[in-house]
């Protein structure tokens, strides 16, 4: 072992060898079965998709495996939704009994929005723990320590900080949260550790921030003129003495819709353009500061690189009206796997199973507050 890699450090990457065709087949199945089962199938669909993706990822010559099931996701969801309904009903009754104006009523009214901001953050941490414990490699599974509830509070605090600093604390906050998540992550008995400063990415962030604000202002001004929004608004709030022509109303509604679409698409492209450098730098900074077992990481991801990738995704989505989703999943997996260099090899002679708790159900919170398609 001492001189087996003398002079040469082995560089490897995660290898993804899935096929777009297979992904499409899974997606079509998911859509059809969702319709037939009133979308109850979505939990099993997610498990299917993850099983495919995991099993087509290789590291050091052996494939990953996803051991989660649709049932676990479904039960997790039921649990959370059940608790949440009881809670919500309790709040409603309480507000009814004690009146809206009383102190208790006000508190109860504030609890709901608090939860709506707090719980999604808890969900992210809990979901990561669930997915780590459901990832198997060479018979060894992942795990995570730490409390999702504490993480949620930290994330909430950072969000307030970001709001108070008008967004300028974002890189720092994102880095701290990433550290929280990585430093509690395990694979087998090997712990990951992330130590990264947000200073090197601040230049990219500032530039991106200013670029975004300027470009968005220009976009909104241009749209305002093109669609003559001022007149639109005036006509809608005073529809000529109560006798508005329904055809005219319909046309104005379409114009509004078109303007809205332009804003959405424009904001997406501008956002990606402005923050590509920041996103790439952030990814690079995390890779540079991450350690796991014998491994260190490196990434050569560039701003232009990242921008082209995301621009491609947006265009594919727009042109295919969403049907191109599997293509985007495929592209993303190839893109990120390709741009993460893993330096060194995991010492498989030494790596042992961990005894961290394995949650029995998963992602109930995530499904309730931030459900995605995978």
């Amino acid at each position: 072992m001492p001189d087996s890699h003398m002079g040469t450090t082995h560089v490897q990457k995660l290898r993804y060898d899935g096929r777009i065709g297979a992904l499409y087949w899974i997606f079509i199945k998911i859509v059809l079965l969702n319709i037939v089962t009133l979308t109850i199938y979505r939990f099993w669909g997610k498990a299917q998709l993850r099983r495919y993706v995991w099993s087509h990822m290789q590291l050091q010559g052996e494939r990953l495996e996803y051991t989660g099931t649709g049932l676990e996701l479904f039960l997790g969801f039921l649990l959370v939704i059940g608790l949440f309904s009881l809670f919500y009903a309790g709040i409603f009754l309480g507000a009814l009994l004690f009146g809206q104006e009383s102190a208790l009523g006000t508190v109860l009214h504030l609890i709901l929005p608090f939860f709506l901001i707090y719980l999604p953050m808890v969900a992210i941490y809990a979901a990561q723990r669930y997915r780590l414990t459901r990832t198997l490699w060479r018979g060894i599974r992942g795990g995570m320590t730490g409390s999702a509830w504490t993480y949620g509070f930290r994330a909430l605090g950072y969000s307030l900080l970001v709001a108070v600093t008008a967004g300028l604390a974002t890189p720092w906050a994102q880095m701290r949260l990433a550290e929280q998540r990585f430093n509690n992550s395990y694979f087998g008995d090997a712990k990951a550790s992330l130590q990264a400063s947000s200073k090197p990415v601040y230049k990219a962030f500032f530039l991106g921030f200013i670029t975004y604000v300027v470009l968005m202002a220009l976009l909104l001004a241009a749209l305002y003129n093109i669609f003559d929004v001022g007149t639109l608004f005036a006509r809608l709030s005073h529809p000529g003495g109560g006798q508005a022509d329904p055809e005219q109303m319909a046309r104005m509604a379409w114009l509004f819709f078109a303007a809205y679409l332009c804003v959405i698409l424009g904001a997406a492209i501008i956002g990606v353009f402005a923050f590509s450098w920041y996103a790439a730098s952030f990814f690079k900074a995390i890779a540079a500061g991450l350690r796991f077992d014998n491994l260190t990481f490196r990434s050569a991801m560039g701003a232009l690189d990242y921008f082209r990738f995301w621009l491609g995704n947006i265009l594919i989505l727009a042109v295919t009206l969403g049907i191109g989703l599997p293509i985007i999943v495929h592209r993303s997996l190839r893109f990120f796997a390709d741009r993460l260099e893993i330096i060194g090899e995991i010492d498989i002679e030494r790596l042992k199973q961990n005894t961290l708790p394995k949650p029995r159900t998963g992602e109930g919170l995530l499904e309730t507050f931030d459900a995605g398609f995978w």
Partner: protein
Amino acid sequence: MAESETRTSRFYDGQTARPRDVEIAFQERILVLLAREDMTPIARWPIAEMSAIDRNEMNGEMTFRCRGEPEARLILSPSPQRDQMLQAAAHLKHWKRRERTAVAKTIGGLALAGLAVVLGCYFGLPRLAIAAVQLMPLQWDAKLGDPVRERIVEHEQICANEAAQAVLDRLGERLMPENIRAVPLTLDVVETKDINAFALPGNHIIIYSGLIAKADTPEILAGVLAHEMGHLEMRHPTRGLIEQLGLGVAINLVLGNNAFGNIGRVMAGLSYTRDMERQADERAVALLHRAHIRADGLAAFFDLLKKDERLHIPVLLSDHPGLEERAAATKQDSSGEPAMSAGDWQTLKSICRNG
């Protein structure tokens, strides 16, 4: 090493990451795993407790697990011994099909259960809401509706001619249902060209002055008032709230927070309110009869609305039943007393002057 090259069968024990090269042997219903280097047995897996997880399309390797050691993995490359084992173990040979059948059964069962829940809720929810409202004292309704009425009275232009208000209040008193008299009735007229009226929990009725202005006869006003009182008598506003909440929870449970669910919730919600509108129409006619007032005003009101109707909303998307249907259901003859004297009607018509 190329992917398609055959690698040796290997075993991961789920305790360390080190693979052991293995050969397999049969012993009745037990699969014995032997270490390649010295043929010593390292594991015994009862075939009945094994399941196949995956098959690598490129090199034919199959991955197996055993119930007793959930994280141990056996990866077998194609071999005569493996074929032998698969022949003897149908559940391993046809693993993909079995997996699909099991999932299909679960999902089928759940879909049926989900459908049952949704249908049960859709039909059971109104009954539940009605029962719940019976249990809730009238004062609770007031807690919900009083602040809303206060806000309206503060922010809208209220027509407050005293003599006219007195005429209105007298009409209200004649029509007021018995069972809700515990909480006093308030009738407020908001100045606007619109023709409408609505009820708030706590026995508040808001009337738009456009209705008074455009109505030819006081019986039309009486019909609308009776309709709103029907809503209050049956505690519809509160019942509606409970139904909407219940719908939200039930549909969220089954369909999750997505577009299908929301559309379904809105459609169901609309059908609930349409039901309540029909019931209020029925009660209105009954209340008018009880007060001995001519009951043909409500149908006349729907004719008035039909004249004014500009945008035709399909019934399924509307929170009210179609106007023709409502006019037909409330058709009454003109027997009965007038709602008020001609003089009172003139006084009422001027409610928004010197307000």
